[in-house]
């Protein structure tokens, strides 16, 4: 039984069958990549995990519970954190404040009217957030305005914000999209580091084969809304079906 | 039945004014992304173009009539408009009588100019500023414009009649088999409705069938991409602002005979037209027009006696009530696009 069990998920948008009959199982403590050419339905699938979309058919079970029909914040409270294709951070706040928000969410749940406490006085959480910033090498930028940082730093911050919640499952939506090669390599290193430091399950949607093969322990190949194969990176590399699916693709 | 026909006509008439103002608001919002709180003031300036035209035509010289006395007991000064002495009393009188239609010609260049100056002088600097700032600065401008008008024209309404040819009303009822004089409608109000229909049609045709319009529509949909194509969209948007001002101004000129213009008529319409725009859906031109007519008609129905007997005070709140219901059932109004002004 995997941490995330996807059974028979299908989704139509009008006349377009975005997802056919997707079955997928993400095992605990593995890095699972979902790859496929443009329009294969990767993002649609991811949106079904986090509550943004509800599939027409099938089930998505996380840790033995269905996530379908739940809102994004409920699913996050179950233990799934998500990193977006373009970093979603709180631009008007500084780095430390960005970090405190997931800390509060983790401790206090989806809503608490803590109007008469002071952020600075939450020593445990401040310490936790600072430790996380140290881990991702951003501690010297803690007072910086988040919007004024480079894209790479924003990505780093977003990941830190997700990781500080100790998620059971971390979903990454093309974490290196639009990045220069150097930045991509930094991100790969960061993710590897994270993987080494803590027990975490990751599901990555990715386009870039370099990233996939550097990180993934298992790979699902998606084409036209249905999974072609699921296997280890080594086996996927030489798989004829995969090559066929990617024929003519730039990657 | 006759009552309902009449209220539909009333509604179309009120709706014409709402729709014309809302159309201009939406043009400005859709193209420039600016929330223009001074739009009501443009409508008001339009109406005062009619007043000014009337004033110009009735510029008079004074002669003393010794047979009559004024309120102080002095000999009465009789005013004779210059046009009457130039063209003869009858011709002159009929020229004055046609002040409002003449004001249409007079108002178009004025409104275009007002729009151009407003856009280049002020609005331009607010494209990238938050909507709250745009609201504040245009609201300030609206106050300034209305106070200036108040200073020179006073606070009282100023009667600005329609030409005699359009006075009186048309008896619809007899065409439809009702008793005479039960279903009648004033000519000028019918003119107003027709005029609104023509203007709305013209604006849509302009946007639909001219290259200029196509570029603007594309700009409304995706400003950056159009900008990337190397098209000078800003210049076209300036023209669009002038156009929107002209639409509001024409709506005002034609409205003058329906209700005597006063300096705060713009503010009276402003809030309602915002409700109309939002109910129609931000940025949607057909939505604005549709919502304008819909709310006008509903408002008219709500003022019918038997409805007021059932729900007292319904005519006071109907527009807001409908707005709430529509916004709760259709999140982005009748025809709004996703993501516009939602943050």
């Amino acid at each position, binding site marked *: 039984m995997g941490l995330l069990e996807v059974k028979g998920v299908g989704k139509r948008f009008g006349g377009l069958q975005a997802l056919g009959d997707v079955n997928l199982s993400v095992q605990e403590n593995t890095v699972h990549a979902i790859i496929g050419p443009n329009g294969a339905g990767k993002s649609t699938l991811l949106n079904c995990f986090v509550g943004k979309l509800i599939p027409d058919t099938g089930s998505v079970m996380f840790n033995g519970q269905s996530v379908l029909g739940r809102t994004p914040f409920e699913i*996050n*409270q179950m233990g799934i954190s998500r990193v977006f294709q373009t970093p979603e951070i*709180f*631009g008007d706040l500084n780095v430390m404040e960005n970090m405190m928000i*997931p800390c509060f969410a983790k401790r206090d749940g989806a809503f608490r009217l803590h109007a008469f406490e002071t952020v600075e006085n939450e020593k445990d959480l401040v310490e936790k957030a600072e430790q996380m910033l140290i881990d991702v090498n951003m501690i010297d930028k803690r007072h910086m305005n988040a919007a004024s940082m480079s894209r790479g730093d924003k990505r780093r911050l977003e990941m830190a914000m997700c990781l500080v919640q100790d998620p059971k499952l971390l979903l990454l939506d093309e974490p290196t999209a639009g990045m220069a090669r150097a930045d991509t390599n930094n991100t790969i290193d960061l993710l590897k580091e994270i993987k080494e430091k803590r027990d975490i399950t990751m599901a990555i949607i990715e386009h870039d084969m370099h990233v996939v093969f550097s990180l993934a322990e298992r790979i699902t190949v998606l084409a036209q809304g249905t999974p072609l194969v699921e296997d280890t990176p080594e086996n996927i590399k030489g798989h004829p079906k995969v090559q066929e699916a990617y024929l003519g693709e730039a990657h | 039945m006759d009552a309902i026909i009449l209220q539909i006509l009333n509604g179309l008439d009120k709706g014409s004014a709402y729709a014309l103002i809302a159309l201009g608001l939406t043009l400005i919002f859709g193209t420039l992304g600016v929330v223009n709180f001074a739009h009501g003031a443009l409508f008001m300036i339009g109406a005062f173009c009619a007043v000014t035209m009337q004033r110009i035509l009735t510029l008079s010289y004074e002669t003393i009539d010794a047979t009559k006395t004024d309120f102080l007991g002095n000999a009465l000064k009789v005013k004779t408009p210059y046009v009457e002495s130039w063209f003869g009393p009858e011709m002159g009188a009929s020229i004055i009588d046609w002040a409002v239609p003449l004001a249409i010609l007079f108002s178009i260049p004025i409104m275009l100019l007002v729009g151009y100056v407003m856009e280049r002088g002020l609005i331009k600097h607010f494209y990238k500023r938050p909507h709250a700032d745009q609201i504040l600065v245009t609201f300030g401008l609206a106050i300034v414009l209305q*106070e200036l008008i108040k200073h020179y024209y006073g606070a009282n309404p100023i009667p600005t009649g329609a030409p005699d040819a359009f006075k009186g009303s048309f008896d619809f009822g007899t065409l439809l088999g009702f008793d005479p004089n039960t279903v009648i409608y004033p000519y000028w109000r019918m003119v107003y409705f027709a005029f609104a229909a023509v203007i709305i049609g013209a604006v849509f045709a302009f946007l639909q069938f001219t290259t200029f319009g196509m570029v603007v529509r594309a700009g409304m949909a995706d400003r950056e991409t159009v900008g990337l194509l190397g098209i000078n969209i800003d210049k076209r948007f300036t023209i669009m602002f002038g156009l929107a001002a002209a639409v509001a101004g024409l709506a005002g000129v034609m409205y003058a005979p329906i209700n005597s213009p006063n300096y705060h008529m713009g503010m009276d319409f402003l809030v309602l037209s915002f409700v109309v725009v939002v109910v129609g859906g931000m940025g949607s031109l057909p939505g604005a027009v549709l919502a304008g007519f819909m709310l006008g008609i509903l408002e008219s129905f709500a003022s019918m006696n038997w409805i007021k007997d059932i729900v007292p005070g319904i005519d006071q709140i109907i527009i807001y009530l409908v707005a709430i219901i529509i916004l709760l059932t259709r999140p982005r109004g009748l025809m709004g696009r996703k993501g516009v002004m939602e943050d």
Partner: protein
Amino acid sequence: MLGLSKKDTKFLFIVIALTAATPILLQPFPEGSAMSQFNAGYPDLMQRFAIFGIFAIGFNILFGLTGYLSFGHAAFLGVGSYSAVWMFKLLSMNVLPGIILAIIVSGLFALVIGYVSLRRSGIYFSILTLAFAQMSFNLAYSVLTPITNGETGLQVTLNDPRILGQQVAANGNVPPTNFFGLEMGSSLKIPVGGWEFTFNAGYYFCAVIAILAFYLSLRIFRSPFGLMLRAIKTNQTRLNYTGLNSRPYTLAAFVISGMYAGLAGGLLASMDPLAGAERMQWTASGEVVLMTILGGVGTMMGPILGAGFIKYFENIFSKINENVLHQWFSFLPDGLEGFVIWVAEHFVGSGWHLTSGVLFMMVVIFLPGGLVEGGQRIGKKLKRKKSDGDGDDAEHHPKQSPHVAE
């Protein structure tokens, strides 16, 4: 101290000191001098500064922190006033029950309106709140006259029951509003040289409450709750994917700011026991928006400054008439005097609206951050002069997030 950081404590004490000294600060010109027209140190206006300060502080909790622009906040102010006056009519002229009821009723009202309106965001939210407030105003003016006394406004009369208090005062009139015997209208007048300072009980009552309100909002700004509200303003998507439900946060902010408005309304009625329907009109809602933007959205001091600014112009400039102008400019030669007065007339007396319109535009054009930004710029200039040649230019430091208290 008081759960505040050092900087905030200092800030709070400055505010307390300024509030306490208001009767002196607002009376800079001697009585009878030509400039005494500009003095604002009389009870009614000082009370209004404090009360509208509270209103704007509350509004800023919603608009400044979450970015939700309510265009119907005056409705809560009006509801607060009506509740308070009803308490004066039924219970007693003690202001306490009135103010408490005002806060409770406006809170409930805000809960209902907020629950519905917060289903939408952006301008759709603004229009929903506007619609609710306009409905309240229109009905209060007409159909609800039995409750609101319509056009005239709800007043206390000699026939009211006032079961816990005096029905008629000893002098045969309606008893004055009081706080356990301390009459709101009572003042201590102290003449100093040519000046006369008025220390009014009602003002200090409002001032104490305003300081409490300010302190509370300072705590909210610094609290995790306040942080969440600011997060809502910048990125609701991220907030939802971080496991936080934005709806109860925005609703709580809406209700809290509605209660602030109700408190302001209750105080307004306590200082002057009348509740007029115009308090709920869209122009009144717009006024608090203007106050907040004019002062500086999301800053602590901004809304208070904005409230003071607008109320000052409304009450002082509208009272300057031609006679006063003649007094001022009588030293000029005749022709010039005539011209100066002709120009000035546009802006004072019946032209005070024009002045406020021009000032709104000037502030937004030249001070996008409101009056607070103006203050900061002046402060910076002074600082720069001091540290001239120091080379310690602020711009060479990494950009820091602006501190919300500034």
